[in-house]
């Protein structure tokens, strides 16, 4: 399969990229890793007039803590997450997710920015970013703006990003002591999108009670879902059996799955609870200083 014809541009700066997006006024698509976009183009599900390849823009791939945030540049590869010692130590939810995204070959090209802003409910990083309370930084013709991911995912393949805006960075609140996070999904076959997936991020206070909690779900609705009631139910509580089980049942209630080839509705709902519980257990263990 060969994609339909398009004009190709490889800008060398964010400003140049934004000018191109503006020139094509919604008819251009940003090419980062290309592992979602190129397959969609081959299937004629996407037929952009032009591609703006951001891979030649310098300094757009990085992972660093700065001020109160962990900053991840848009063209950072999934494999860079997996190989980052900082991520493994302080943001293990992203190591978990990177390990479960597609396969090692895809991870060599697929990017963090693309995974976050593509808007496929089967992408794994959106649920992680929701659980972590991340923000995205977008640059458009009017300059730069910061958007919380909690208000970013509008519908399948629809985000708050304007078609003339470029996502340049994902910002995650800097990890704190007694914070633990985890991600896990189940797949029908190796490398497939999730049948269901769950992300959890917990911060414990000095007494060991939950100070804040984020729980989110992958591929059980039109977008990644922040299970706010589930996370909220843990705040101020001890992370014990009863509270974790209750939070997992609230995560199941937040799921809005469709039945499809990856499983029926009831199964996906049940798995939302099971996976939420598994990642909560792992996040608690990590917050308490274990693995």
């Amino acid at each position, binding site marked *: 399969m060969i994609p339909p*014809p398009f004009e*190709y541009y490889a800008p060398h700066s964010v400003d140049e990229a934004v000018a191109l997006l503006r020139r094509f006024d919604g008819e251009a698509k940003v*090419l980062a890793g*290309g592992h979602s976009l190129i397959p969609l*183009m081959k299937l004629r599900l996407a037929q952009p007039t032009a591609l703006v*390849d951001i891979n030649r823009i310098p300094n757009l791939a990085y992972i660093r803590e700065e001020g109160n945030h962990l900053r991840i540049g848009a063209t950072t590869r999934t494999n860079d997450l997996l190989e980052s010692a900082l991520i493994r130590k302080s943001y293990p939810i992203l190591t978990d997710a990177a390990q479960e995204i597609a*396969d*090692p*070959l895809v991870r060599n090209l697929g990017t963090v920015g693309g995974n976050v802003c593509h808007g496929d409910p089967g992408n794994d990083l959106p649920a992680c970013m929701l659980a972590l309370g991340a923000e995205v930084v977008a640059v458009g013709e009017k300059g730069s703006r910061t958007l919380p991911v909690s208000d970013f995912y509008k519908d399948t393949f629809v985000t708050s990003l304007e078609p003339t805006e470029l996502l340049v960075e994902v910002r995650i609140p800097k990890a704190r002591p007694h914070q633990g996070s985890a991600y896990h999904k189940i797949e029908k076959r190796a490398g497939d999108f999730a049948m269901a997936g769950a992300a959890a991020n917990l911060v414990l206070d000095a007494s060991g009670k939950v100070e804040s909690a984020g729980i989110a779900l992958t591929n059980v609705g039109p977008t990644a879902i922040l299970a706010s009631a589930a996370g909220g139910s843990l705040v101020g509580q001890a992370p014990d059996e009863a509270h974790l089980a209750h939070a997992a049942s609230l995560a199941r209630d937040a799921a809005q799955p469709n039945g499809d080839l990856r499983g029926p509705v009831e199964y996906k709902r049940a798995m939302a609870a099971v996976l939420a519980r598994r990642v909560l257990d792992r996040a608690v263990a990590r917050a308490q200083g274990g693995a």
Partner: protein
Amino acid sequence: MAASARPIAPAASLTSGGAPAVTVRVTINGSPVTAEVEPRTLLVHFLREVVGLTGTHIGCDTSNCGACTVHLDGKPVKSCTVLAVQANGREVRTVEGLEVGGKLSPVQQAFFEEHGLQCGFCTPGMMMTATALLAKNSNPTDAEVRDAIRGNLCRCTGYVNIVKAIQLAGKKMQSAAPAGGSP
């Protein structure tokens, strides 16, 4: 197989209307190649149809099977999901670039010795992924090999011998290392 030794010239141009052609300059198995192609030309088609290197296979064409795996600046990628123009100015290594001076690479030799193939269709991609794995870790466990080849499907399901072959190749590289063998 000794493609790196024979001059590589663009056999055909893939421009046929549509968007303006782009010039792609890429180093393939150590030899520079320049060609005018449509932007929509996929790297795998560029390699097979423009450059004439047909060792890289097209399997699923949907970035699942890994038969089209090549190295892009040393990292294994699925060339059915990369535009040729994305490789502009970069280095590509294909299965034809594994052997050195007419001698099979340790990975090729080990696939031969362990019978790491049945129909052979997935083999070029398997060997490219194996070569990249062993460059980082020449003594991988069974689990590490299986994780590394998650993106390479063998429809004959001959994985047991493929894993054995990759581990044997690692051993060959370790014993050859002092003599300057390259993966």
